[in-house]
């Protein structure tokens, strides 16, 4: 669950003295949107995005990039003139959860990962985090999602997990979310099976309510 396991390690970087067209080409060729700016010793000093470059150039460059004379004048623009200095960074020892919270708060598309000495060691993007999250949800594997309503008291989740385990069913993931009724929780086990008929009956006989999947949202449970 650490950033070091999910980040991109072979990071493409630019020097602060590079011209903006070099950076633009690098990004286009590698289909990336963020370039950390480093000193020759690898210390991070800034970051430049494809958006920074687009904002620095007049619109016509994207329609006719071959206006040589003008391109010349813009090529005097250096990365150091348009980059974000001292960007928000995280440490490779941060967890994926840390990274999710930082990236959401910072409203950026990627975070450079730097060691304590300020040396760049990787970059983690929203894409990397999504990949990790898909992995956590287990949805890369075939399975069925159940939605169970349980009372918020000790031992309820154990009952659910025990019932599923007794059926010899593996878990892809299990999410627990708050529910719109007081003292209730919604539990979403993702079960790696097609065979859910018997476990559904069993959970009902144990007194759990199976929720209609149309009645909830992962990020915002509706109020009744």
């Amino acid at each position, binding site marked *: 669950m650490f950033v070091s396991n999910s980040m991109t390690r072979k990071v493409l970087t630019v020097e602060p003295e590079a011209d903006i067209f070099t950076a633009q080409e690098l990004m286009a060729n590698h289909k990336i949107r963020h370039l950390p700016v480093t000193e020759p010793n690898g210390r991070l000093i800034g970051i430049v995005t494809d958006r920074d470059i687009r904002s620095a150039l007049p619109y016509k460059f994207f329609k006719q990039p071959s206006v040589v004379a003008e391109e010349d004048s813009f090529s005097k623009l250096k990365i150091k003139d348009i980059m974000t200095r001292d960007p928000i960074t995280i440490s490779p020892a941060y967890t994926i959860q840390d990274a999710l919270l930082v990236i959401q708060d910072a409203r950026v598309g990627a975070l450079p990962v730097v060691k304590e000495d300020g040396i760049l060691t990787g970059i983690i993007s929203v894409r990397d985090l999504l990949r990790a999250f898909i992995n956590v949800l287990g*949805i890369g594997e*075939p399975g*069925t999602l159940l939605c169970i309503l349980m009372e918020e008291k000790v031992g309820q989740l154990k009952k659910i997990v025990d019932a599923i385990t007794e059926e010899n069913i593996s878990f892809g993931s299990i999410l627990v979310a708050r529910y719109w009724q007081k003292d209730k929780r919604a539990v979403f086990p993702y079960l790696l099976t*097609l*065979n*859910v008929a018997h476990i*559904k009956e069993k959970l009902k006989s144990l007194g759990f309510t199976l929720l209609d*999947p149309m009645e909830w949202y992962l990020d915002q449970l509706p109020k009744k």
Partner: protein
Amino acid sequence: MSNRTGFLYDDRYQQHLTGNYHPEMPDRLPAVYKGIQDAGLLEQLTLIKAVPADLKWVETVHDPHYIKRLQKACSSGNNIFDSPDNQMCPATYEIALLAVGGVLEATRLVLEGELDNAFCAVRPPGHHAEVDKAMGFCYFNNVAIAARYIQKQCGIQRVGIVDFDVHHGNGTQHIFERDPTVFYYSIHQHPTFAYPGTGREFEMGKDAGHGYTKNSPMLPGQGDSEYKQILQRDLMPVFADFKPQVILVSSGFDGHIEDNMSDIKLTTEGFTWIIKKIVEMAAEYARGRLISVLEGGYSIKRLPELARNHVEVLLNG
């Protein structure tokens, strides 16, 4: 005038045993038979008996190593294969070959003009089976193998597959996703909620096969009216363009409101409407040639009427 409809039924399909509490149980087939028999339809049908498939046809879809692996697992008495979902017994390999063979026999009779169409009541089902992996109660992909047979044995180019089982037929989709000669259409419960987690709207085939796979994911709670609307929007136009020369149907009845394997709420009448529309398309593009193959459907109480209505439509359009 009624159609010459074949009905593949063989007691041996009940020899594939799946243990206690397994929904894909032998009793499903007698339920299907009873519904057809009680309605007095047997006299109008041509009964087809199963014959084991020639391995050369199975190998048009499945990896030879996989076939050997399954055979070995059966003969050494394993009771699960690849996943705890796939409960098996020593006879499973032979019976799975018999399912493929029965479907190929029905296909042959339709393609040679002896029958107009056929319903194959087989076990184990097939549409989750991948090239080299058993999944979701399925070992050999009966429908996929039939599609290859139709192309190689009968020289027919364009095969259309309609899969209305409530679960997406991942195996069939993956087998043909790069193939523009086999159109795979599936309507099923949305993969976020239901097994196997594939069959999203944006899965449309790959490379040369792009545009020859189409998926209609249905939300939990949806039923007859939504299915009618979506099939008319998604299936009819693409088959009108593709003009399949034969239609294969993966017929799963597990989207029935009383089937507890899904949250889809189709009624018995809803299923009748669906097969009617598919039979109409077969009449229009494929000279009526249609082979329907049983996939899921686990409500022992509702299977008789579902099978009866299905066969009635095949007979009378």
